[in-house]
């Protein structure tokens, strides 16, 4: 194993982490402010990817597609919030799980209804193709570097939004005490819709950016959703900072596990057994990580609420 390969894998882990952060940030905000578990968050990821692919195919511009993904996910998010989600805030987690599970079925089949059964095409924009050189003789794909950049920018933007703006102040108030913001004269309904749409838009953005790397197809959101839940639980539900650190942790552990574990087991079990055991263990690794962290810190690393 060379240093260059190690650095490249580390970057891959960070890039995966950043992508998970975009999903997890919305989830954790929605939980922190409204107390809602949203299983349908993966659907916004899918909607973002489909919107981007469809608009990019029609106009030839990835950037228009990206804008469309943000708009579409935010719009659908706001609509769903106003028609369905709004009725769930006062319910227990059980009802929320079931209702948003139902939404997954509706969105998945609805998307297939609209776009057909075959995967869509979406490629990375021309200006971001190619690689850049890194110290140590390794190279890294420019587009993935850009994803890391977007993730860092979003994290910074969210920090400024929450720490410095009126909306942020209301979000913080909402996290601290839900009744209080009503007393402050804030229109809670609008605030909730805005927060939900913001979370959906971030998921849509993640879906669009990743859609250029992967396959744009129905059901693409659910595996990411599960990972994003792992992230926010590790980080501490309701905490943006926890989501960021949890996401990077999960991204790096998952990538490095897939990279290093098979090699480790091959070194004393031989190639075929070692690969099998190492791969099996690698696929369980982040869940093991999560169980370990929760066993020691039952409310995650940076729990926002007790």
């Amino acid at each position, binding site marked *: 194993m060379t240093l260059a*390969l190690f650095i490249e894998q580390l970057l891959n882990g960070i890039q995966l982490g950043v992508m998970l952060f975009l999903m997890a940030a919305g989830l954790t905000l929605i939980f922190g402010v409204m107390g809602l578990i949203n299983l349908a968050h993966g659907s916004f990821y899918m909607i973002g990817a489909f919107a981007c692919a469809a608009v990019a195919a029609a106009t030839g511009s990835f950037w228009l597609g990206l804008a469309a993904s943000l708009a579409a996910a935010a719009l659908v998010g706001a609509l769903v919030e106003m028609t369905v989600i709004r009725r769930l805030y006062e319910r227990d987690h059980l009802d929320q799980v079931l209702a948003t599970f139902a939404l997954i079925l509706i969105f998945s089949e609805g998307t297939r209804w609209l776009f057909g059964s075959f*995967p*869509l095409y979406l490629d990375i924009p021309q200006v971001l193709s190619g690689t850049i050189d890194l110290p140590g003789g390794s190279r890294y*794909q420019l587009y993935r570097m850009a994803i890391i950049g977007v993730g860092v920018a979003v994290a910074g933007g969210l920090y400024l939004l929450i720490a410095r703006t009126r909306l942020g102040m209301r979000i913080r108030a909402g996290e601290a005490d839900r009744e209080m913001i009503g007393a402050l004269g804030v229109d809670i309904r609008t605030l909730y819709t805005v927060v939900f749409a913001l979370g959906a838009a971030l998921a849509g953005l993640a879906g669009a950016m990743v859609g250029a*790397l*992967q396959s744009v197809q*129905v059901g*693409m959101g659910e595996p990411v959703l599960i990972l994003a839940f792992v992230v926010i639980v590790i980080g501490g539900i309701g905490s943006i900072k926890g989501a960021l650190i949890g996401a990077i942790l999960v991204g790096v552990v998952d990538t490095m596990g*897939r990279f290093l574990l098979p090699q480790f087991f091959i070194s004393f079990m031989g190639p075929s057994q070692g690969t*099998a055991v190492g791969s099996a263990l690698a696929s369980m690794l982040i869940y093991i990580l999560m169980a370990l962290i929760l066993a020691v810190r039952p409310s995650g690393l940076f729990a926002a609420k007790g």
Partner: protein
Amino acid sequence: MKKLIAAGVVGLSLGISGLASAESIKVGMITTLSGGGAGLGVDVRDGFMLALKNAGNTEIEVVTEDDGQKPELAVQIADKMVQSEKVDLLTGIIWSNLAMAVVPGVVQQDILYLSPNAGPSALAGAMCNKNYFNVAWQNDNLHEAMGAYANDAGYKKAYILAPNYPAGKDALTGFKRYFKGDLAGETYTQLGQTDYAAEIAQIRASGADAIFFFLPGGMGIAFMKQYAQSDVGLPVLGPAFSFSQDILGAVGDAALGVKNSSQWSKDIDNAANKKFVESFQAEYGRLPSLYASQGYDTANLIIAAASKASVKDKDAFRAAVKEAEFESVRGDFRFGNNNHPIQDIYVREVVKEGDVLTNKIVGTAFEDHQDAYAAECKM
């Protein structure tokens, strides 16, 4: 609703002509029509229905139901079709794990099952059954073909890659069975994995001279896109699944030039295939995939067998299916002792025809190839 009308029609025809009704055949099609894998099921179904239409056949009634790619649901639907719909034969399953769930139980009840896609090794070997016919391929076949082709192309050091599940292991085993060179690396990825940056980085560092991968569905799309975006640039080999017509559009130009193995291609030169490709395009407005060709062949096999024997006479009908005297779109086709195909397997290359990505045949990997498990089958 549709089902009710169909049942009504059957009832009516029974009432009108009690004598002629003996020849009507009820086929149960269990296939995947929802979720991420729906494209494959849609193609098999469309190919199947097209064959019936082209033949002007009205005796075959098809009951279709979506299995949602869930084995338990597939089993339930199979029970329903056998016990409630009283189908004469079953077909349609796309995935090996669903086939493994459904087929052993169904064939035990003396119902014929014709596989239009999956061909798990167990069903070809020790668990083979007189009531189970595979009209597509045994799972290893296309991978074996790629192993043989890699030798012909002069590759000495291949990096091979598949998901960590039985069909993935069969795929790499199949490739290695024929490939004579060394392995630069062998990686099992997580099932459903969509980011291959880590694997691609390892491939770059491995010193391989070619890559063979089996990553069905969205996994293959993701891998090909990411591989093309990286600057590794080694030649890529794979079975047809990641380069079939249903997903080439989503892979895009990344797939151009890739060699892949298939028992069918739209440019196989025979009358049946020409008619199939033309009528499929006319009917559905898209090019057919190999899955569609398999559905089409399955239907034609049933039609041919029905013309020779009554479906009610199980033994005679089974014998008629085994003779396989139908115009296959892939040319020569016959069944081996284990009811799996003995057929040619081609090497195709992804090319662009106008704006459309598709495949053309560039060579033949095997002629009259039979699967490796036939000897284990005591039939």
